[in-house]
């Protein structure tokens, strides 16, 4: 069920997609709070209808960037262009966005209907139009029966939906979400995450969400912007970010990762202890030290033959049962340790147990090398 206005928006969206001029363009934006440089030279394009997540540890500047886009904390340097208009100097009230905060910021003395209709009253709409719009929004977030309740009488998930409906009431071109799910229980969070994504797709509204939860970002985003210390580390699709982290920080922050120091033997070959490993992709100069990265689930164990390329001998030190799989701590002959994820099947078939010797393979296309020193890798040893 697509309402006519949304269908129209969809057409416009397609046009803008094809013309390839981004809906939101952030150019060389910097922001300082006193001596603290919160954003350092940020540039980023967001396409219309896209769902972008800003991901990073707390204090990385992701919320500051969102607030700069909203005009709540105006940046010091750089420009932000939305829909072809330079909005850098505009106050929030003259920008086109809806926002949902972590605290929801629902007006406690207004009921759900009044909260949702807060921005509609006093505009050009008639009373009946407003009523119809509120009903439509409440239906959209599934809160039709809760209209006369006050925020304090709603559950966290319901409050979050009200905040979302309120933000979408004026049909903004841009939806900003500041950690909207992090105040919720894990289960509610997962459920709402799916709904949020569906709703965003249906309305074709451009959305930017700030989160520190990598799983959430991977699940919901069309593109992820990984940030650290006020800089963008990497921009890419969830699969890109996970499979091909371009920076050690990203490799470490998103998902589990093994970091192992190695020496480069020659182009595409590194030495790990006694073993020589082939590596696809770029590698540092021969003779240089490097850090090898491989995800625990990429370490192969089935059908590995002694002497096979990229194989190493190891012994299982510890096994941690994690439900659908097991994480084993392996000690290589050279003394280095690696984490490897084994399916329950593999554990059973190969009857893996602590103390057992085995041969593992590190597939060349799953290994990434980063130059040493890698600060993020330092605490992994």
């Amino acid at each position, binding site marked *: 069920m697509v309402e006519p206005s949304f269908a129209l928006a969809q057409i416009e969206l397609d046009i803008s997609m094809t013309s390839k001029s981004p809906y939101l363009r952030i150019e060389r934006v910097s922001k300082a709070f006193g001596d603290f440089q919160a954003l350092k030279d940020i540039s980023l394009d967001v396409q219309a209808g896209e769902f972008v997540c800003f991901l990073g540890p707390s204090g990385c500047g992701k919320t500051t960037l969102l607030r700069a886009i909203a005009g709540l904390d105006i940046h010091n340097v750089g420009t932000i262009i939305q829909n072809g208009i330079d909005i850098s100097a505009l106050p929030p009230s003259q920008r086109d966005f809806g926002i949902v905060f972590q605290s929801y910021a629902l007006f406690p003395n207004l009921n759900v209907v009044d909260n949702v209709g807060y*921005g509609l009253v006093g505009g050009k709409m008639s009373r009946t139009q407003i009523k119809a719009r509120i009903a439509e929004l409440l239906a959209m977030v599934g809160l039709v029966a809760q209209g006369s309740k006050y925020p304090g009488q709603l559950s966290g998930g319901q409050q979050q939906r009200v905040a979302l409906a309120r933000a979408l009431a004026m049909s903004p071109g841009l939806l900003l979400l500041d950690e909207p799910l992090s105040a919720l229980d894990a289960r509610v969070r997962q459920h709402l995450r799916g709904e949020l994504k569906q709703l965003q797709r249906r309305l074709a509204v451009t959305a930017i969400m700030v989160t520190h939860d990598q799983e959430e970002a991977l699940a919901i985003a069309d593109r992820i912007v990984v940030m650290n210390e006020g800089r963008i580390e990497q921009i890419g699709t969830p699969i890109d970010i996970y499979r091909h982290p371009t920076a050690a920080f990203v490799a470490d922050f998103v998902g589990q990762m093994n970091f192992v120091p190695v020496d480069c033997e020659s182009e595409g070959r590194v030495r790990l202890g006694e073993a020589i490993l082939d590596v696809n992709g770029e590698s540092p100069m021969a003779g240089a030290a490097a850090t090898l990265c491989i995800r625990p689930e990429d370490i192969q164990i089935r059908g590995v033959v002694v002497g096979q390329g990229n194989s190493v001998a190891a012994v299982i030190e510890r096994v941690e049962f994690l439900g659908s799989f097991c994480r084993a701590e392996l000690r290589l002959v050279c003394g280095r340790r690696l984490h490897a994820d084994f399916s329950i099947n593999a554990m059973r078939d190969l009857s893996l147990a602590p103390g057992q010797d085995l041969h593992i393979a590190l597939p060349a296309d799953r290994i990434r090398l980063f130059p040493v020193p890698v600060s993020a890798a330092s605490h992994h040893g």
Partner: protein
Amino acid sequence: MRCCLLLLGLYLTVTLVLPLYTLLAKSLQNKDGHFVGFANFARYFADPAMLQSFANTVHVSAIGTIITLLLAFLYAYALTRTCMAGRGFFRAVALIPLLAPSLLPGLALVYLFGNQGIFKSLLFGHEIYGPIGIVMGEVFFAFPHALIILVTALSVADGRLYEAAESLRARPARIFLTVTLPGCRYGLVSASLVIFTLIFTDFGVPKVIGGSYNVLATDVYRQVIGQFNFQMGAVVGLLLLLPAVLSFAADRIMQRKQVALLSARAVPLQPKPRPLTDRVFFCLAAAVAGFLLLVLGMALFGSLVKLWPYNLSLTLKWYDFARAGTDGWGPYFNSLRMAALVAAIGTAIIFGGAYLVEKSRGAGRLRAILHLLAMIPLAVPGIVLGLSYIFFFNAPDNPLNFIYGTMTVLVVNTICHFYTVSHLTAITALKQVDAEFESVAASLKVPLYRTFWRVTVPVCLPAILDISVYLFVNAMTTVSAVVFLYSAETKLMSINAINTDDAGNTAAACAMGMTIVATSAALKGLHSLILRRVERRTQAWRKR
């Protein structure tokens, strides 16, 4: 927004900073207005009579502080840490002195211990007029202020600490010394600073019962009103600022040492019944409450008898102010009018100002300065503020000179006098309002003033009512600042009571004092009624 902030800055500059500056300047000038450096101060400290009243002030303040602190601590402990009967009643009684002008305990003490007092013999030949009377009156006057702070300090306690101490087999005395006392150390220090300052600068009690025992506050009055010695008045006025400055320094040092006593995991302490302890504290609380009620009751009785102590038959003739040869009911209506204006205008300015300081965006330095300015009145005793106002507004070359002697100057002065507590109440309430409301409103293109009216004011309504009642009651009871500023047309009830007592008509003065108490009490009652109404009507959202 910035415009409003600047307006607020201008208002505070005119009503606070410039008058205080004028006072400071005056203390460094001679009679002709020439700068003479610290000559006035030198003259002050060379005068043994002046030094004597300084010593007197320190003396009665110290004794009064110790007694008040001890009584208030025991009383607060009884209210918060025991299961004694009638805690609600005792709490209400303890706050009664807040409704009375500070001269009222003085008058009551005259009836109780004066030359014709009932309990004169209890003084063993000592005079009530002088330090004894001042200390007794000040204890009555300062008690609720100390109690509020100590009750707050004692209410905040982690029950787990007591369970831990008990499980380690600490004896009650040890628990008290190692857990209870350290836990409210900060409250004890700030309570003692607050009441020392209050007593040090109070005017009403020593005026009525001080006799020939001079203190700084009465000195200022005598220097300025009696001898027109403005320069010396300014010097004494500045000396009255001393305890506030010391308190500020002490507070800073304490706050640096203060660590959060309550973590998020703390479990509130629930007092358990201890029959013996509860009974002992009940007796203590009853004695203190009895003293407070005795003082108030005596003032009431004094205002109702024909001729103390010879003819004790009851009469209402002292309430017939027109016949008592004073200004009739005029001052009462002046007081009512002033209190209403202060409550209405003051609440608007102070709450609006606090909103700007707390919620506007940008202009960080200006907002910080405004907040700092709003804190100053707390440190300025009424008598000093009143003095500053004469110096500033009565200056012939001040374009605002025309408001001198009008109701306006009384209202402006009283708002300024009670600015800080109201400001802090407003800030506390505003801090509890989600900081993102203004951001949401901006994203919804709703102008700020609409969110202010539709959300901020309704959410803060209880605090707004609190502020207006606080301002009203204080405007009704205040004496110290306005005593310099009233004119024949704007004479207030509290001042009329002082003048009437000066003229020897103690009974009529008592009647006036009791009229103020009754008005304040009525307003407090009205306040709780309105609050209940408002809560039922507009605060439905507070219920879950």
